[in-house]
């Protein structure tokens, strides 16, 4: 994958001068980047720099945060995502998302996973979809005997994997993942990473991670965000965006080098 050269890829998302506000506060400014198709793009950067904020723009879940406002251009396969005639539901149906805080529904484990296929009216064998998705999210063995139990009574890591399974069940085109492995143990993390590499064959993936190793292990492209003081306001900014090996081995900016070299993970 890493060998696939940039000019062979097409872009799924292109953003130009994207600014995101919460109320009157500018949270992230001037983000211009292109997300290549069928690759894994990682967003890294210090806490509060706006990674989640930008990620949410890609499937318009920011619409739901009162006061959140997006300026600038963001296209998905050449179509303006924020154009009037765009149906955010259709967008989200194609662009799935796993959130930073696990948020299972107060329903059974089975119903959590079956939720998507059900509402989308997908004509599939639900039992099969539930099992496959849970297997892919490395959760099947742990829950196969208690599918009827409430999803919220799982452990933190189990909940997160449940949310991943839920997102996989609807078979989206793009998957946005906000720190999907932060609550996971190494074994589950490895399985999720393997899964991502597998999905990459067919899907475009964007992942936010604080784990440098993870970023360097799985991603093809990496975007490094940073925070700048504008007046007394902290505003996020895209510092550098390039192939992962470039970002980790020979970044152009000093800030990037500083950040990735303090390899903590």
């Amino acid at each position, binding site marked *: 994958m890493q060998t696939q050269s940039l000019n062979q890829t097409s872009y799924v998302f292109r953003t130009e001068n994207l600014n995101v506000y919460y109320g009157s506060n500018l949270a992230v400014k001037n983000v211009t980047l292109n997300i290549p198709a069928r690759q894994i793009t990682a967003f890294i950067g210090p806490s509060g720099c706006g990674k989640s904020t930008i990620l949410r723009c890609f499937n318009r879940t920011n619409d739901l945060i009162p006061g959140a406002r997006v300026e600038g251009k963001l296209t998905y396969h050449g179509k303006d995502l924020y154009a009037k005639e*765009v149906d955010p539901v*259709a967008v989200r149906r194609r662009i799935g998302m796993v959130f930073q805080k696990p948020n299972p529904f107060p329903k059974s484990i089975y119903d959590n996973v079956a939720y998507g296929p059900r509402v989308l009216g997908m004509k599939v064998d639900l039992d099969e979809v539930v099992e496959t998705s849970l297997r892919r999210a490395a959760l099947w063995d742990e829950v196969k005997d208690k599918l009827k139990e409430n999803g919220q009574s799982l452990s933190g890591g189990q909940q997160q994997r449940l949310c991943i399974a839920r997102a996989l069940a609807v078979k989206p085109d793009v998957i946005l993942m906000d720190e999907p492995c932060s609550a996971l143990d190494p074994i589950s993390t490895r399985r999720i990473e393997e899964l991502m590499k597998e999905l990459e064959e067919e899907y475009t993936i964007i992942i936010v991670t604080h784990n440098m190793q993870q970023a360097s292990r799985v991603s093809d492209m990496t975007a490094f965000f940073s925070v700048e003081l504008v007046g007394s306001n902290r505003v996020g900014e895209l510092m550098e965006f390039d192939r992962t090996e470039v970002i980790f081995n020979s970044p152009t900016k000093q800030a990037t080098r500083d950040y990735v070299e303090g390899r903590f993970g």
Partner: protein
Amino acid sequence: MTSAATGYGSPPNPDIDVDIEKKASPSRAVDVGFVRLTLALAGFAGIILIWVILQTTEAALPAIQQFGLGFLVTARWNPVENIYGVLPQIYGSLMTSLVALIFAIPLGIGTAIFLTEGFAPKWVTAPIGFAIELIVAIPSVVLGLWGIFVLIPAVRPIFRAINQTLGWIPFFGGPAPRGPSLLIVAMVLGIMISPIIISITRSTFESLPRSLKEGALALGATRWETILTVMIPAGLSGIVSSIMLALGRALGETMVAAMLSGNANRINISLMQPGSTITALIASQFGEAGRLQVSALMYAGVVLMVLTLLVNIVAEIIIRKFQNLEQ
């Protein structure tokens, strides 16, 4: 470049794949239809409710024209000469509701806390919860009868004792109390409305995420500190809403006030003496009222609506202030 060309736009059929425009599909139609339906119903609900308000106001017009604002400060109700004013009833409505709330708020919130915050096992709290909701369903005429035949005889000696010892306080003053009084009304109203506060406050507490409570307890807060400093502020809007609903019920309750207030058409500061409320006035006079009298009763109804509105506005301001401090 062939491979690149097929790769362009990602999966094989780009046209279908990037199809994100709004377009007619059953689920979108249902969605848009649903949102419009809720909009329409909300609008229709608004219309109905405003219709009720307007209709009452229309019926009140003759009296409004004839008595003007003097209606609010006149303490006479004379159907024989057609002279009407509702000052005593305004006082009575406000005082009975206020005192009922003074009973019901601590009782209601205290009970809701007791029932949700693990002071008693579920097999104790569940039946209590049911019984409490039942009270709301007792026809108010039955509560009125209960007040006349059970409560008044039971509390009359207590009233008299209080009147004798604390009579210097204006609210307990006046001649030896006979029973029917604003205080009795307020007591029965308090019983009637506390279930509203209990039920809604209870479900508010139950819906708060457990992690909030855990957070406070893990810092070493006691159960009560957690309740007072985290649970109640977090559930404030629900609690206030329950209080407002309860207040609405108290202000609007008819038969209890009519049967227990003593229906005295004069202002008496003392809560132990007979008084009257707007609803009692409407209920007891409507059936036999003459034309202008009916209009005056509707005017009294309008006054009650305005009172309710004012009370709600005050409550809203209080919540806003409180929440600003909190955030």
